[in-house]
């Protein structure tokens, strides 16, 4: 393979295969996300909320964890992370259609409320930032048990203003817990722009107040993200405590399929945001280092499309959970 000898992924200890895998996850995330919008716009599913613009931050971050060992308390945009951690496209579509077998909730929760026991993906809710405390609690328990796992949690920059964020980071700092708090800053909380959300430049500037390092990283640069998270993971495993990492991202879609961003978001701004598309950027890198050319790219797109088609078809064909089960699992069953 005609790769250059010196390139950024190799410097980070990533093989060409790993680099391609990273890109594949990013692209898979994007293509699933786009498909979900199509399904929503055609009335087949009621709701979608996007990872678009945040795939680099998500895949780069999750790639630094060990699947099946480390833990994730995700947020609704974390499609990229849950895929890396082990969730399958089939499972994603099952949740989108709210069909039986959806491992997140078997149709109880709105789509994008990820959860997967098998892969240590903690079930999430809608109220923002609550998951930060759960992640900290898992880290506390793991530390008590002497397990060397790392727990990662995600949230948006708007959500970092909630009390639970503060209480969680402080707790993690005091107890030096093995967790990573990942703020995906996409410059909006629904319609509220950054300057109405917070008065500091970076959310990461809050880290010193919790006695932990605060790292700012370009979320469109998947390798920079990966590097930052790998360091934080190492730190956590060495028992040196938590890290707050903020990735600067863009939101390429309205907040969700229920939103219409035209009243609050200038079109030119969205155009500017597209310049920071992590997919474009990573693709360019792969071309540069010779890991991708048109032919290989085409093949990858086809392969991913097939996987998505199959997953969607499968999910659509599944039945809904029967109402007879509706009262189950309120409490432990005898």
């Amino acid at each position, binding site marked *: 393979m005609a790769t250059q000898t010196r390139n950024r992924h190799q410097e980070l200890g990533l093989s060409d295969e790993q680099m391609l895998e990273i890109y594949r996850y990013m692209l898979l995330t994007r293509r699933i996300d786009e498909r979900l919008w199509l399904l929503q716009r055609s009335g087949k599913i009621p709701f979608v909320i996007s990872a678009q613009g945040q795939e680099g931050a998500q895949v780069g971050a999750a790639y630094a964890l060990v699947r099946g060992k480390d833990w994730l308390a995700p947020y609704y945009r974390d499609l990229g992370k849950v895929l890396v951690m082990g969730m399958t496209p089939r499972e994603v579509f099952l949740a989108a259609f709210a069909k039986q077998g959806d491992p997140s909730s078997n149709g109880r*929760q709105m789509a994008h*409320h990820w959860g997967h026991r098998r892969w240590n993906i903690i079930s999430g809710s809608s*109220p923002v930032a609550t998951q930060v405390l759960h992640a900290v609690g898992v880290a506390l328990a793991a530390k008590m048990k002497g397990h060397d796992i790392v727990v990662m949690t995600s949230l948006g920059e708007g959500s970092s203003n909630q009390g639970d964020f503060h209480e969680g980071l402080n707790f993690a700092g005091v107890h030096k817990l093995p967790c990573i708090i990942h703020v995906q800053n996409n410059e909006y909380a*629904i*319609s509220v722009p950054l300057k109405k959300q917070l008065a500091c430049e970076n959310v990461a500037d809050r880290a010193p107040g919790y006695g932990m390092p605060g790292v700012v990283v370009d979320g469109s640069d998947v390798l920079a993200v990966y590097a930052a998270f790998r360091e934080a993971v190492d730190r956590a495993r060495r028992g040196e405590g938590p890290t707050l990492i903020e990735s600067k991202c863009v939101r390429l879609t309205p907040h969700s399929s229920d939103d219409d961003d035209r*009243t609050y978001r200038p079109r030119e701004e969205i155009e500017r945001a597209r310049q920071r598309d992590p997919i474009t950027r990573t693709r360019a890198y792969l071309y540069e280092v010779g890991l991708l050319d048109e032919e290989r790219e085409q093949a990858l797109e086809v392969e991913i499309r097939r996987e998505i088609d199959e997953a969607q078809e499968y999910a659509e064909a599944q039945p*809904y959970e029967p109402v007879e089960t509706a009262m189950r699992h309120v409490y432990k069953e005898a």
Partner: protein
Amino acid sequence: MPVMQYIEAVRETLRSEMRRDPNVFIMGEDVGKRGGVFRATQGLIDEFGEERVIDTPLTESAIVGVGIGAALYGMRPVCEIQFADFIWPAMNQIISEAARFRYRSYGTWFVPMVIRAPYGGGVHGGLYHSQSVEAHFAHSPGLKIVAPSTPGDVAGLLRAAIRDDDPVLFFEHKGLYRAVKGEVPEGDYVIPIGKADVKRDGRDITVFSYGKALHFCLEAAQMVAAEGIDAMVVDLRSLRPLDEETILNAAARTGKVLIVHEDNAFMGIGAEVAALIAEKVLFELDAPILRLCGPEVPAMPYSPPLEKWYMLSPEKVAAKMRELAAF
């Protein structure tokens, strides 16, 4: 009388009160340029500016707590909680603070504040965009709780809430926002908080309800009327205080009582209505006091069949009415 949607009644009442009193202002998440995620405040920022229609950070405790502070200073904040489901982070500020300032200061400090929150299900909202939360608050003296079912009641009660010198939780059923239209009296139309409303008179059974379920009850009353069951339907509207007099008279009138709400039964508003009747007019009753409410699951599921299973409907209410009438 102009006819408008439920959500228009919210918006136009806010507008008229903001025009009338410069101390009235709005704060909440996305209430500004976005006009609220349901568009209840759409356009208000254009008329009143971003100083009086404030997009806050994503922090419910601050929305309420800062609102309290502003109210202490003499303003009349109307705080929006984007979904009632997200009111819990503000629980401490509502229960420990807003509800108690007057009592704890022997009347010297008080909190003229409205907290608006869309609640209720049937909108594909799943566990966290469908909840009814009124029962959790109705237990607290110091709070007033309102849950209107028609555009007219929205206008009259929201106006009363804004002018009230005590904190009022104003719950808007999001399933009614665009589904219900109705007449709204023009001008200074105020409905005193604490008055129930007999939305349909009847002689055979008495049904108490509020919110979206109230409409199911009215439809169901139509259905059973054809079968000779004449149902009285009372809209509670004000959940704290409850209108004891109207409730007791209505219960006594037919001797047969059914309480209907979307929220789950256990410790729901219906429990208090039933307890009140069982204490004050027990000997007037000819039948057990029945409740038809949401099931005892933590919240409304998402998938269409499960959501339908959870939600009430005119048919479900009619069936229960027949059961009651048969006693």
